[in-house]
């Protein structure tokens, strides 16, 4: 049709063709690398607009269409692509043009010019817009995220600039945060490395990585945002620093590509094992057993999949009752107190939800120490394990026995930790033969050989006897000294040996070690004393790369628990911001903005205590939400930043973004009108069905006939739950209650619920409605939280009443209202007086309520398994159905089902198709449910919370499915 179009086709084809030829095989060419100035971009846009009306013309000029679509994508800030595209392509909406044509143009571009093919979860969800966005290289919101990732990667960048794959992997691993789309970029390390290198070394970049003109544009846009500009500058400084020393053959790096992920994880895990240590508690006057957990970032660095698995799995120590702050695991070491001695040779940790192969790889070497275990007391009231069990004259040790030898049974146990007898042993300054014999008899190996210690380089770990850890940047050096004369001293390593002649008593010998690669190394030290028998012993040296995470600078630690950067999770209260560090107070600021790092729509400030626990955070957040400015800005916000400032102790920030799944509700408030729009990016022809439940009648979802093309206004009186559903996706949102009330009493929601029969389909339907309420996205409106909470509690209470009976519910309500131990006794009586094994087990569990509440959720499930053994005799048919579906795991599944039924409003999603059988079982045999409810209620009586949701019960925060 047009010469102008042909000219552009030809020019762009020639440009991209030449670029693809110049660029190394394996490196992508992006549609954004068109090399056009602003005037030319406008011309391509106008050409595209001009061809909208004709399918033939559109197909002919597919290349300008791809360039135009990539330009629109470059401005993309993670919100809505198509509205922007339609705005910048007038006539698109009214033409017969299809979105699929846009994808086709990029597929063609990928085929001809090696354009990128989007991959990963986000690309699977957004099957069309992922193409222009991948071709936009670094759209607006990703610029900031990449700048931060590069900054966090720090000086480790310098040694990786020669390998873009390795650089990409390293940058991906360095940043904990990032949206779903940044995660997609992480999953493509070569692409990430290509962009990262271009940004870090702009002066060294020809067109080989990115077209120079495009790179200048990216750099200029990056630098227009203050914090991103700072991060990039700091990353460039870090990348330009000289590499201190080659780190040797790094385990888990690309230099060993033949290794499986599991093998790499296993190798790295060996270097960073958790450590069981014993520490004196002056307040309690006894020794406590602790598990020091390592910083898991080296494991996360193996691959993005491993990082994801670590972030999403639930980490716990079977021997501890206290939870592990898993949000902190990836950047910091932490300690948990053990209430039980860890089972010898059993895994010290569990990662619930992690693929079995990966969990095995991590835990292969992380096992409980065998007993007797010998701990040497050091100068700071800490006792570290001596794996060799060697003890020296004049030192003090703690020796842990699961079954102490006869001679030590009467010795005082130094710890309250169960399952262990900890004996304090003071080794006399001179060892005679009987003493040596008795020490050996007690599981120790008395030695009088030379003392070896790390010298001249600060070790990051030293057990006091035979194991040391240094960084790869250290020059390691050992000192050896003997209190008696040696005729010969030999130190042997993998690389050779040195032999010394006569060494006088008290002389210090310094042994310089060669540059050691990252990993574990062993020395053998042989001594031939002038008098006495020769000895030989091993000394273990571990070398690891330095960790440069800038987020660990300063004494404050800030993390999200459990980890999520979804703004919705923050708002709803399903994640908490935690702080650790010196006791004190800090200034905390919460800012909401429409775009990442954009001008704040609202700010909230307050003083918070340090440490700040998840429970403490809830109180802080409730107070913050009282700032009505924040509540009213929330619906327009896509990004939030929480900053903590402790003056000279430093400051920390975390950022949240609103997650945008392909099927989602967009909610806005315009004046007194509430506007609700359904966005479906599945690109399928199926229209979602929409159902609605009012605040006043929350248990019934009714179908809403509506045209969703342009959204719709929610009538002011019709706040409530809206659920949109397609065959394989659904989205739920709570629309705000009315803004204005005629009387104060109207501000309270009093839901009216219909009767529910124990009929399984009806119960299942109500549990689905309950789950939708519990998981729905919340608006900013303050009352919406409260009214949603009322709805969840009302439906759950009704369902429990149906399953447990009216009398039970009456007693339960009375307990929750007076919260006394006497009332709790009445509830315990109401569990029932069933005889037999089940009755006895039920009473035993109820009697241990407080103890069970101290256990992790997973361990609580374990406690319930015995009770479930009787299920078959009470409800044969549903039990058989569960056994068929769950096989050997049926009892455990059922135990968890009962506990969740009592405490988790989102149980329907967890149980899936087996909800039906589970409900039938609970309907036929309510005893386990009453026991579970009793334990949950006992927790409320003990703690005095909770009237809001989430969680339904404190200490019962189940993983979401």
């Amino acid at each position, binding site marked *: 049709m047009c010469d102008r179009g042909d000219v552009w086709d030809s020019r762009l084809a020639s440009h991209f063709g030449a670029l693809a030829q110049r660029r190394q095989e394996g490196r992508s060419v992006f549609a954004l690398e068109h090399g056009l100035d602003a005037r030319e971009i406008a011309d391509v846009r106008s050409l595209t607009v001009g061809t909208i009306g004709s399918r033939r013309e559109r197909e002919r000029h597919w290349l300008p269409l791809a360039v135009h679509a990539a330009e629109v994508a470059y401005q993309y800030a993670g919100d809505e692509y198509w509205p922007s595209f339609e705005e910048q392509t007038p006539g698109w909406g009214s033409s017969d043009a299809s979105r699929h044509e846009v994808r086709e143009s990029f597929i063609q571009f990928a085929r001809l010019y090696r354009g990128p093919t989007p991959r990963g979860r986000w690309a699977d969800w957004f099957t069309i817009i992922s193409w222009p966005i991948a071709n936009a290289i670094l759209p607006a919101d990703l610029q900031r995220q990449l700048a931060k990732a590069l900054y966090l990667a720090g*000086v480790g960048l310098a040694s990786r600039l020669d390998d873009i794959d390795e650089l990409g992997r390293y940058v991906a691993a360095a940043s904990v945060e990032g949206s779903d789309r940044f995660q997609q970029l992480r999953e493509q390390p070569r692409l990430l490395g290509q962009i990262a290198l271009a940004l870090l070394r702009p002066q060294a970049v020809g067109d080989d990585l990115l077209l120079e003109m495009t790179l200048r544009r990216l750099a200029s846009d990056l630098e227009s945002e203050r914090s991103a500009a700072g991060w990039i500058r700091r990353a460039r*400084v870090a990348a330009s620093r000289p590499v201190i020393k080659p780190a040797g053959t790094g385990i888990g790096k690309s230099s060993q590509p033949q290794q499986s992920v599991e093998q790499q994880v296993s190798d790295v895990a060996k270097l960073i094992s958790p450590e069981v240590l014993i520490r004196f508690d002056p307040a309690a006057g006894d020794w406590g057993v602790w598990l020091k957990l390592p910083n898991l970032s080296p494991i996360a660095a193996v691959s993005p999949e491993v990082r994801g698995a670590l972030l999403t799995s639930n980490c716990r120590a079977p021997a501890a009752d206290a939870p592990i702050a898993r949000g902190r695991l990836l950047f910091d070491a932490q300690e948990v107190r053990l209430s039980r001695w860890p089972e010898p040779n059993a895994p010290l940790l569990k990662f619930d939800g992690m693929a079995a192969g990966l969990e095995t790889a991590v835990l292969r070497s992380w096992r409980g120490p065998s007993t007797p275990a010998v701990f040497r007391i050091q100068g*700071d009231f800490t006792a570290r394990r001596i794996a060799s069990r060697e003890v020296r004259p004049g030192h003090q040790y703690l020796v842990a026995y699961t079954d102490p030898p006869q001679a030590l049974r009467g010795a005082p146990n130094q710890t309250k930790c169960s399952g262990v007898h900890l004996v304090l042993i003071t080794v006399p300054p001179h060892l005679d033969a009987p003493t040596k014999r008795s020490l050996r008899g007690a599981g120790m190996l008395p030695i009088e050989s030379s003392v070896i210690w790390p010298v001249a380089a600060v070790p990051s770990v030293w057990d006091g006897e035979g194991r040391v850890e240094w960084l790869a940047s250290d020059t390691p050096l050992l*000192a050896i000294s003997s209190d008696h004369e040696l005729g010969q001293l030999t130190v042997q390593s993998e690389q050779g040996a040195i032999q010394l002649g006569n060494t006088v008593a008290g002389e210090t010998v310094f042994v*310089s070690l*060669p540059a050691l690669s990252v990993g574990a190394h062993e020395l053998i030290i042989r001594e031939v004393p002038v008098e006495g028998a020769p000895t030989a012993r091993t000394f273990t040296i571990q070398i690891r790369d330095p960790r440069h995470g800038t987020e660990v*600078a300063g*004494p404050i630690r800030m993390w999200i628990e459990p980890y999520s950067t979804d703004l919705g999770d923050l708002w709803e209260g399903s994640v908490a911001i935690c702080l650790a560090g*010196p006791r004190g107070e800090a200034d905390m600021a919460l800012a909401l903005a429409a775009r990442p790092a954009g001008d704040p729509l609202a700010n909230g400030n307050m003083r918070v205590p340090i440490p700040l626990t998840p429970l403490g955070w809830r109180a802080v957040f409730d107070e913050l939400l009282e700032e009505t400015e924040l509540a009213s800005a929330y619906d327009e916000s896509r990004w939030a930043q929480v900053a903590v400032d402790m003056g000279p102790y430093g400051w920390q920030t975390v950022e949240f973004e609103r997650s945008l799944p392909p099927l989602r509700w967009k909610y806005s408030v315009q004046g007194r009108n509430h506007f609700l729009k359904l966005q479906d990016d599945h690109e399928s022809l199926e229209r979602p069905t929409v159902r609605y439940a009012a605040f006043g009648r929350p248990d019934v979802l009714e179908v809403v006939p509506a045209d969703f093309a342009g959204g719709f206004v929610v009538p002011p009186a019709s706040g409530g739950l809206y659920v949109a559903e397609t065959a394989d996706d659904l989205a739920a949102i709570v629309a705000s209650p009315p803004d204005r009330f005629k009387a104060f009493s109207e501000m309270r929601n009093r839901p009216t619920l219909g009767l529910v029969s124990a009929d399984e389909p009806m119960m299942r339907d109500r549990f689905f409605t309950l789950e939708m309420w519990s998981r729905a996205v919340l608006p900013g409106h303050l009352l919406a939280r409260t009214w949603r909470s009322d709805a969840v509690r009302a439906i759950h209470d009704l369902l429990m009443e149906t399953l447990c009976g009216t009398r039970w519910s009456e007693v339960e309500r009375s307990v929750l209202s007076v919260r006394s131990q006497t009332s709790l006794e009445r509830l315990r009586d109401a569990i029932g007086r069933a005889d037999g094994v089940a009755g006895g087990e039920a009473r035993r569990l109820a009697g241990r309520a407080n103890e069970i509440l101290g256990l992790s959720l997973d361990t609580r499930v374990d406690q319930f398994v015995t009770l479930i053994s009787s299920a078959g005799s009470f409800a044969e048919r549903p039990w058989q159905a569960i056994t068929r579906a769950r096989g050997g795991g049926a009892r455990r599944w059922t135990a968890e089902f009962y506990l969740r039924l009592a405490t988790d409003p989102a149980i329907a999603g967890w149980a899936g198709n087996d909800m039906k059988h589970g409900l039938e079982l609970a309907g036929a045999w309510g005893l386990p449910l009453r026991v579970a409810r009793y334990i949950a209620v006992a927790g409320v009586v003990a703690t005095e919370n909770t009237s809001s949701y989430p969680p339904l019960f404190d200490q019962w925060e189940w993983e979401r499915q």
Partner: protein
Amino acid sequence: MRHISALDARQVLRSNLAVHIADLTTADDQGLRLATVRLAASRLSPITPQGLVAATSLILRGLLPGGLTSAAEIDADIDSLILSGDIISAKGVTGGSSQTMLFLAPPLFVRRKSGSVFVMGAVPEAASPFASITRALGALRELVPPPSDQDLIDAGFLPFPIGAWIEAPVARLHGDLLKQLDDDLARLPRAGDVEELEIVDPNQPHTYYRGRWTTGKGASGNFVARRRRKWGGRAWGYAELSGGVAVKFRTFPAIDARFRACDEAWWTICAADAAAGKAQTVVVRRSGSLAQFVVNTPLPMWIERRLLSVGTLTETPPRGALLAYDVRAADADEELAFLQTHLWMVVEEDAAIS
């Protein structure tokens, strides 16, 4: 692998420290010890003071003369690093109990009025980006020549306002300070055995600091004191003695927890001297653009930081003096007034030199 001499081993120490801290080619033994404490703190924090003393002593064992690696010497280095802002001493939780922990400060810089820059804190396990231009002045690390603010920020150092760095307690009368401590001590129950106690003996010459510390044999009354801790280092405090036996001991800080225990001890010593009519003296020697302040008592960190913000520590104080500071002449009078109000010092102009 090879056998090396102690001298070569010291060279390895020097080079390991140089990578992370600063060029230490010319550093003496004390300088090496201080740098080792700094590196150990950066790698092992948060850590208890006892743990840091033990770790440092281990690394230096056999490399430096034994007397230089005693717990007391390392403890004094830790105090210096708290003064310089590299280490933060605060209550933290470890082993289930709240106790004093040492934390590594985040990388910060302070720009003095003169434009010169010193840095504090670090990123753990990372090499100092300014190691080659770092000049150690005791525990202070000055960057020479001073980089621009932007270069410092790009290297990860955040600006720390000098006003915050030189924060001080509110000025008060010496009698009020002593009364507060006496009252505090009076409320305490009798202590158990307090072993290896030293007191600042008012009968000793107040111009010779080291000589003022005695065992307190036969002394009665309230005194600034220090006692040896079980696991090394010294605890500073205020003690009531009866016939030379300590019956009560109040560990410092008792008044202002922002500062070190030794700061409160030195502050109290000045108050007690002033109350006894023997106020400490600051001798001023003015010479051109500088004024030298010469003192015979250690200064709390909140005054030392002030002086360091407008001057430097004189490397070799005049004979017989404990410490001296070269202060810009333009700032001298303001600083002297501060010494008079906060430490009740008497200013003495040294006319012989001025």
